[in-house]
């Protein structure tokens, strides 16, 4: 009897490509910098740490923490993007377009205005908590506005995209107003608000990593439910999925995953939007493998963006968020072109 085949034929190579790319990006990120560390030495330092060697010190106290933050941020943003795009069946959804980033920024800026100590190095974790709360707040606000605007009647989730954009603009406006009232603190905050990966933030990663693990575990466990929701809520409901419950849990998990990444290193945009679109042609639309592959690719992309940020204008370090925005802006146009302006725009995910 002939077997029915499952999944895209290129899925296996796609996953291998993602894993290989991540390893390569990780290696590059650790070796390349203002000071070149040879790969052999890098591996030696990973195996046995010698505190008297400058390279070992550099690696363990600066580059590895930085790389871990990049991996976490990239993976979380990408996973959140995959799930939000599947839930909304809209290719333009991402944590950033849902107000997570602007909410987090507003809360941190507001917190710093009310309580200036928040920006001192001793309060890194409190800063992260504030950002986490803000990210969740932004997304909840966007969802509430969308619901008021009648999200349920819109199969492609346009009202959510509009609500997200509206909320993002509103929150950024408030943020700008607060920043303008306090010029002294503006430069302190500007660094955070443009999303920078910095080895100092590793403390926050140590505090927040478990949020991402729980959220991604939840999303993986819900991958079959999410696949069915991708086909439409009536189809999913009739196949046995509790659509309202699963949507809410998945939404919450992806918002928390993204917000925890923003809490670690500030609002890094566009990974959540871009990576699922790179991953889908290789891995297919099924949420399980797509989550895994997107996490790999998001982490790899974030490592490369971080490397570019460090190397582009030496000796100055650019913000990773700025590099991502430059990359993502171009990609945004490509997505709109493919999904909204092409001939087959009517029948897409």
């Amino acid at each position: 009897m002939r077997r029915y085949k499952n999944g895209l034929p290129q899925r296996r190579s796609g996953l291998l490509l993602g894993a290989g790319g991540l390893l390569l990006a990780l290696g590059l990120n650790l070796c390349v910098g203002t000071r070149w560390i040879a790969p052999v030495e890098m591996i030696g330092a990973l195996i046995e740490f010698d505190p008297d060697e400058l390279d070992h010190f550099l690696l363990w106290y600066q580059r590895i923490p930085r790389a871990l933050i990049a991996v976490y941020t990239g993976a979380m943003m990408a996973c959140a993007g995959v799930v939000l795009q599947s839930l909304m069946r809209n290719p333009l959804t991402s944590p950033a377009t849902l107000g997570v980033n602007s909410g987090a920024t507003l809360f941190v800026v507001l917190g710093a205005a009310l309580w200036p100590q928040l920006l001192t190095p001793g309060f890194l974790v409190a800063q992260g908590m504030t950002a986490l709360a803000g990210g969740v707040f932004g997304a909840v606000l966007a969802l509430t506005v969308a619901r008021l605007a009648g999200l349920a009647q819109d199969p492609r989730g346009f009202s959510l995209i509009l609500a997200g954009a509206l909320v993002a603009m509103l929150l950024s406006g408030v943020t700008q107003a607060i920043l303008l009232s306090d010029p002294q603190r503006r430069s302190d905050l500007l660094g955070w608000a443009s999303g920078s990966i910095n080895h100092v933030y590793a403390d926050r990663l140590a505090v927040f990593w478990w949020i991402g693990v729980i959220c991604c575990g939840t999303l993986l466990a819900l991958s079959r439910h999410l696949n069915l929701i991708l086909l439409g809520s009536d189809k999913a409901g009739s196949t046995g999925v509790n659509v309202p419950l699963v949507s809410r849990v998945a939404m919450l998990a992806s918002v928390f995953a993204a917000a925890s990444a923003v809490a670690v290193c500030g609002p890094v945009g566009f990974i959540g939007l871009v990576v699922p679109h790179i991953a889908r042609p290789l891995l297919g639309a099924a949420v399980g493998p797509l989550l895994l592959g997107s996490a790999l690719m998001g982490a790899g992309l974030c490592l490369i963006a971080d490397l570019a940020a460090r190397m582009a204008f030496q000796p100055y370090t650019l913000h990773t968020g700025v590099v991502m925005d430059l990359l993502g802006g171009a990609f945004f146009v490509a997505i709109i072109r493919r999904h909204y302006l092409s001939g087959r725009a009517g029948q897409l995910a």
Partner: protein
Amino acid sequence: MLELSNVSVSYGKNLCVRKVSHRFANGRFTALVGPNGCGKSTLLRALMGLLPMQQGEARLDDQPVHAMGRRSLARRVAYLPQDNHCPDYITLGELIELSAFSRSRLMRGPSASDQALFRDALQTVGLLDMAHRPLNTLSGGQRQRAWIAMVLAQDADLILMDEPVNHLDVAYQYSVLNLVARLTRQRGKTVICVLHDLNLTASFADEVVLMRDGRIEAAGPVRETVTADNVTRTFGMEAEIFDRNGRLVCLPHATEFSA
């Protein structure tokens, strides 16, 4: 057997289905026919638990449907909505596997019997060779057969379909409905199917339920129910019904639009 007693469903503020009572016989192909907005689709969605019933209840083999869990209902009733989203890059094989959700367990792949069911469903609709193909590379007719295969692979005895031949050309309409009719004759499935075309209904259905304004206007075997009089009452237009070599043919007369 599916039995409706006094079912009322409202959609938004409108009462779309008004006190409908009917028994759907087992192993028959029943067509649900009526003008646009008469409550056919709403009735199917309410039966699936996707819309709440205002009043009345549906019983499946004497068990109230609303008391069944989502998954146990999905094991007994499969539903094909009118509009299905066709996501990019999802393959036919993956689509079919999703149909077994109600029997699936966390972290476990489909069982051997489910896999046999998937193959069989694809074979039945003639798409076994296409299982690795992404859904959006299939033609409209193939895609519609793919959705039907997904419904089949759900392995339910009762199948509800909402306009399964919408957007298909006439050859595909006949082949898809022929397939559906075969399911009742050869596999003992019970099919309740919303249709718009009276000639298709007359060619393939065993029973017909004519609906108008949320009520059942007439119901029964096709031959006795699709009459000129009933068509006029249901659609508000004149029609001639003839018998041509044992097949009913419905010829509507064009009328001016009157509100």
